[in-house]
């Protein structure tokens, strides 16, 4: 019965029926709420605040790192290097996919996919796309060295103590 009703309407080109308007509104409503819920779910699972580690931290006095030192600091994920009176803080996070590179006298080597870096962190082999970044070193008034991982500096810019 109602089919006939619709069919007539289509043929005669009469104004849209109430049913059509309702169907249209309903679909728009459904579609709209689907979009809104997808977006809001994404917003929900995206944390607003993260509690990362501070980017600036003290690592000790220069005397604690005698010339020839090449050691990695665990929590901070930087290698502290001292040659003579020149010092540097080089990231030990592999620029390929984030593994921690091993520190050796000859440079750095990554156990995950075989990236290799020279003593200054420049890529010498493997898939790493970038050299290991250098971070700014400074001497705080209390005589302790500070690394600022928020400040990347040019490779080879040594800090003289």
């Amino acid at each position: 019965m109602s089919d006939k009703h619709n069919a007539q309407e289509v043929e005669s080109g009469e104004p849209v029926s109430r049913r059509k308007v309702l169907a249209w509104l309903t679909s728009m409503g459904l579609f709209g709420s689907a979009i809104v819920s997808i977006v809001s779910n994404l917003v929900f699972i995206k944390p607003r605040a993260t509690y990362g580690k501070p980017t600036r931290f003290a690592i000790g006095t220069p005397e604690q790192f005698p010339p020839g030192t090449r050691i990695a600091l665990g929590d901070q994920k930087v290698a502290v290097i001292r040659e003579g009176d020149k010092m540097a803080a080089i990231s030990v996070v592999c620029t390929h996919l984030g593994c921690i590179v091993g520190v050796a006298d000859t440079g750095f080597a990554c156990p995950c996919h075989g990236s290799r870096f020279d003593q200054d962190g420049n890529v010498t082999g493997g898939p790493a796309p970038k050299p290991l970044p250098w971070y700014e070193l400074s001497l705080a008034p209390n005589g302790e060295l500070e690394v600022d991982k928020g400040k990347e500096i040019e490779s080879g810019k040594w800090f003289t103590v």
Partner: protein
Amino acid sequence: MVYGMSKNNQKNNFLNTVTEMPKAIWDSVFRNNLPHTDLGRSKTSFTNFFLHMHPVKVHKHTLKPWFTMGLGLMSLFLFMILSVTGVLLMFYYVPSTTQAYDRMLDLRGSVAFGVFLRNMHRWSAHGMVAAVFLHMCRVFFTGSYKKPREFNWVLGVGLFLLTLFSSFTGYLLPWDQLAFWAITVGTAIAGYAPVVGEQMRFLLLGDTAVGQEALLRFYVLHVAVLPLVMTGMVAIHFWRIRKDGGLSRPDDADIVITPMPAVAANVMPATIEQPQLNFLSKARYGIQGLVRGPFTKVGNVPDNTVFSYPNLLLAELFVFVLTVAGVVLVSAYFNAPLEEPVNVLHPPNPAKAPWYFLGLQEQVSYSAFWGGVGIPAIEVIILMLVPYIDRGKKGVGKWFAKERLLANTLFLIFVVVNILLIIIGTFFRGQNWEFVSPF
């Protein structure tokens, strides 16, 4: 039917109510006795849920063990074993970076069957990756993704990816060295995706670095989101198999029936009009529902089908017992790996993923973007488009059909290359991922 009869000659006194209760309860649950006649089999198929999920009758070709090798079923049963053992493990597991590892050790020390359950869960997961992949190979090499099964293949590719992602999220949970470095590397790969990469990595980790938030997120994905999505997709996968007329089979497996003239169809009230699928003009739609394929025997033609009960059910039971037995046996003799507790400064050297990701690991050791994002994305897209690219109608339902030489060869190359990458990653990579010889 059964209670209908007993109602008539039943006296509603207390004694009868009590004495007949067990039977009344039994009959209300199992509305038919075990069928021994064909009529009974049909009836039971409609009243029993587990039979109703199956067609009443199934083609003989489908039951040939070497056609499917039971691989899809095996995937399903492994998924079921994983769900059961996984829920049990949840009673003891805590998704906390400080507790997860200790909980794994507790399973060894203070939980009855703890290690065994963990073994079953881990080995079933490995088994499922293998079974799903082999199932995909079987579907390809038998040309079973062709019309009208194209979309079921696409769903299948989705299921394969979800299976891999479930395994990945699963082996992160013990929070051992493998877990930590796998999350680190895995989410870093996600970060290489164009445009949305960094956002995706942040959403996965819930933080800027790998830690508690990441563990919690992967836990939720592993125990709730992924299993639910997969259950839904498996249900649709199975539904479509039935609606596609059961499994594929070669043309010569059926007698070709010339389409009934429209007049004749009109006199058959129980026949449902055939939708516009003229490629299957031999199809009949009978009272058994809109099921493609010659399930309704029309006229005096040879019947190539047998009743699902007991034929198909027994075959399924056999695969089930085989799967469970295999998992139990392996779990009794081999313990699931547990590496050292997390050491954020020292990845294991070499840090190797489980075997099924070693091909990917080998790929990213050449290029993070191409190996981890670009090539896998291209592979997935091509896989999903396979049924829309290869539109030939020949060679369906036969292993390595001559007509499909090109398609099968290309797919074989894809399979072999991936297996080779896995072999290289497994045996030819040592300290610092350098080439070593296993010999």
